[in-house]
C-alpha cells in the first residue's frame, strides 16, 4: 500500500505526520521523501545512508564539426534551449545550447539530419538510500540552481517496493512536483492547520486529489489554534478527519530539535497506529 502525505503547502506538519506514521507502524515500512527541493524527513528519521546515486537528465552535445547550422534542432526544441547562428561572410556559424532550459526530451538529437547531436548526461541531483532502524529510506536532493524537481522525484519513486507499506512525504504546492509524487498512491493524508491560510491551501490540495482520483482524509495539526472553518468545510465536503494533533509548546520544541513526536511522547504512538488502521480500512 502506498500512502502519501501532502499538504498544499509546507510547514503544516506534513513531515511530522509522515515520519511519526512510519515510526509507529515500524514493520515492513519504506519511507520515501519526495520533497526533492527541501527534503527534511532525514532530520527526524536520521537514516544511515548506504548508497548515493546521481540523477541525470540526457542533454544534447553538439558536434560543431558535423553541424550544418540548418536550424532543425532549434525548430523542434519547444523550450528554446537551442539557438543557431548561421555562418555569414567571414564568420563561422555557432550552435548554442542552454542546459538549464532543456527538459531532456531527445527531440533535437533524433531530428538532426547531420547526426551532429548525441546525448550526454547532465547531473541535476542525487538520491540517497539507506535504513532508519528497520525502515527502508530514500530521498532525493535537487542540486542548488536547478529548476526541475520531477526527474529527481521519478528516480526516487523507482525505489518503491509494493510489498511494503510505503509512506511518501510529498512536496508542497499543487503543481508538477506534487502531481509526480502522488501518482500511483493508494491513499493520501492531507495535513492542514485550522487557520484561513491552512484552509485555503487544503481546498487547493483537495482539488488536486479529486483530479487524480486518489482517496484522501485530513489530519488537523495545531488543532486548537485558529477557527472552526476547517471542520465545517470537511463536514460539508464529506472528507474524513482522521486525526487531530494539539498545539503544544513541547511538541514544537521537540520538533525544533529534530525529535519525532512518538519518540519524545510515546503515548502518541497508539494514535498514529490508529491513523494507519483507519487508512488501511478505507483502502480495502
Amino acid at each position, binding site marked *: 500500500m502506498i500512502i502519501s502525505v501532502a499538504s498544499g503547502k509546507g510547514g503544516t506538519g506534513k513531515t511530522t505526520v509522515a515520519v511519526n506514521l512510519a515510526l509507529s507502524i515500524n514493520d515492513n515500512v519504506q519511507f520515501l521523501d519526495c520533497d526533492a527541493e527541501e527534503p527534511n524527513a532525514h532530520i527526524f528519521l536520521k537514516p544511515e545512508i548506504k548508497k548515493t546515486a546521481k540523477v541525470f537528465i540526457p542533454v544534447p552535445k553538439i558536434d560543431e564539426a558535423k553541424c550544418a547550422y540548418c536550424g532543425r534542432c532549434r525548430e523542434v526544441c519547444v*523550450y528554446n534551449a537551442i539557438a543557431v547562428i548561421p555562418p555569414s561572410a567571414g564568420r563561422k556559424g555557432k550552435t548554442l545550447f542552454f542546459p538549464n532550459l532543456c527538459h531532456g526530451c531527445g527531440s533535437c538529437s533524433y531530428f538532426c539530419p547531420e547526426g551532429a547531436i548525441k546525448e550526454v548526461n547532465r547531473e541535476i541531483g542525487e538520491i540517497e538510500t539507506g535504513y532508519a532502524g528497520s525502515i527502508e529510506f530514500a530521498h532525493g536532493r535537487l542540486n542548488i540552481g536547478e529548476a526541475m524537481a520531477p526527474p529527481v522525484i521519478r528516480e526516487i519513486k523507482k525505489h518503491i517496493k509494493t510489498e511494503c507499506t510505503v509512506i511518501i512525504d510529498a512536496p508542497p504546492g499543487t503543481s508538477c512536483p506534487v502531481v509526480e509524487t502522488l501518482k500511483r498512491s493508494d491513499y493520501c493524508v492531507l495535513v492542514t492547520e485550522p487557520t484561513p491560510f491552512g484552509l485555503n491551501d487544503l481546498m487547493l490540495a483537495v482539488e488536486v486529489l479529486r483530479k487524480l482520483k486518489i482517496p484522501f482524509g485530513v489530519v488537523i495539526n495545531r488543532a486548537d489554534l485558529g477557527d472552526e472553518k476547517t471542520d465545517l468545510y470537511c463536514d460539508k465536503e464529506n472528507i474524513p478527519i482522521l486525526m487531530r494533533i494539539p498545539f503544544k509548546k513541547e511538541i514544537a520544541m521537540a520538533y525544533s530539535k529534530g525529535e519525532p513526536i512518538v519518540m519524545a511522547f510515546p503515548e502518541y504512538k497508539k494514535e498514529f497506529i490508529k491513523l494507519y488502521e483507519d487508512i488501511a480500512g478505507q483502502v480495502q
Partner: protein
Amino acid sequence: MKQIVIISGKGGTGKTVITGAFAALAENKVMADCDVDAADLHLLLKPDIKERNEFRSGKTAVIDAEKCVKCGKCVKLCRFNAIAENFVVDPVSCEGCAFCSFACPAGAIRMEENISGEWFISETRFGPMVHARLGIAEENSGKLVSLVRQQAKELAEKNNSDWVIVDGAPGIGCPVIASISGVDCAIVVTEPTLSGLHDADRVIKAAKYFGVTVKLIVNKYDLNTDMTGKIEEYCKSGGIGLVGKIPFDESVVKAMVKGKTIIEHSENSPAGKEIAAAWNFMRKKLEEKI
C-alpha cells in the same frame, strides 16, 4: 523603485504574515503574490479584482484517433511516459515537448495550448496588487511567477511607486528562481528548527547562486533559543544580515483568522513591534543604496 522579495525555503514559516505586515508598513508600493501554487496573501489583503487575464502556457499533445495508424512510434519516443499503449495522452505527464507530434508519420498528433491559470491586477486597502492562480496540477509555475513579477514592476513604474513587495514562492526550484531574479533584496524567513536552518541554507545558496543579496528573519525565535543561536552564528559566518527575531505570538494567528495584518490587528504586540523594526531597518538600508 526597489524590489524586495520575502522567501522561506519552505512554506509555513510566516512568509506571508511578514509580507502582509510589510505591505501595511511600506508607503507607495505595489504588492505581488508569487506563491502561485498556493497563494495566501489575498486572505490578508482582500484584493478587489480589477483586471482578470488568462495565463496560457505550454502545450499538450492530442492524438487524433481517426488519423492514428497505431504504429507506436510516439509511445516509444516519449521520455515522459505520457502516451499509453492505447494511444491516449495523459495530460498530467505530458511535458509539451512536441517530440511525438514532429515524429508522428501519420500527422495525427497536434499540440494544444493549455490555459494553465489566471492572473489578476487588483486594488487593496494598501494599494495595487498583482496575483495569480495556477490551475490545479498545471505546470509552468515559474513562468507564471515571472509574469506576475513583470506586471507588478510595470505597474510600479507607471505609478511611480517606491517599492515592489513580493511574497515569494517556496522551494528552490523554478518558481523561487523566478521570484528572486533581479530583486534588490531577498529576505529569508526561517524558524529556529533543524529543518528550518537546513531549508534556509538551501534557499540562501540558491539566491547567492543567482547573485541576489540575502537577509534573514527568524520567526518564533523563542521556541528554541539554542537553535536561534545557531542561526545567528550561521548568519555571522556567512556574512548574512539578521534583520529581525520575531517572538512566538498568538496575536499573529488571531490577526490571520480576522483576515488582517498583524500591524492593523495589534501593532504593539511583541511580533508586531519586531516586524515593524525589521521593516524600518530594511527600508533605511535599501534607501541608502539609492
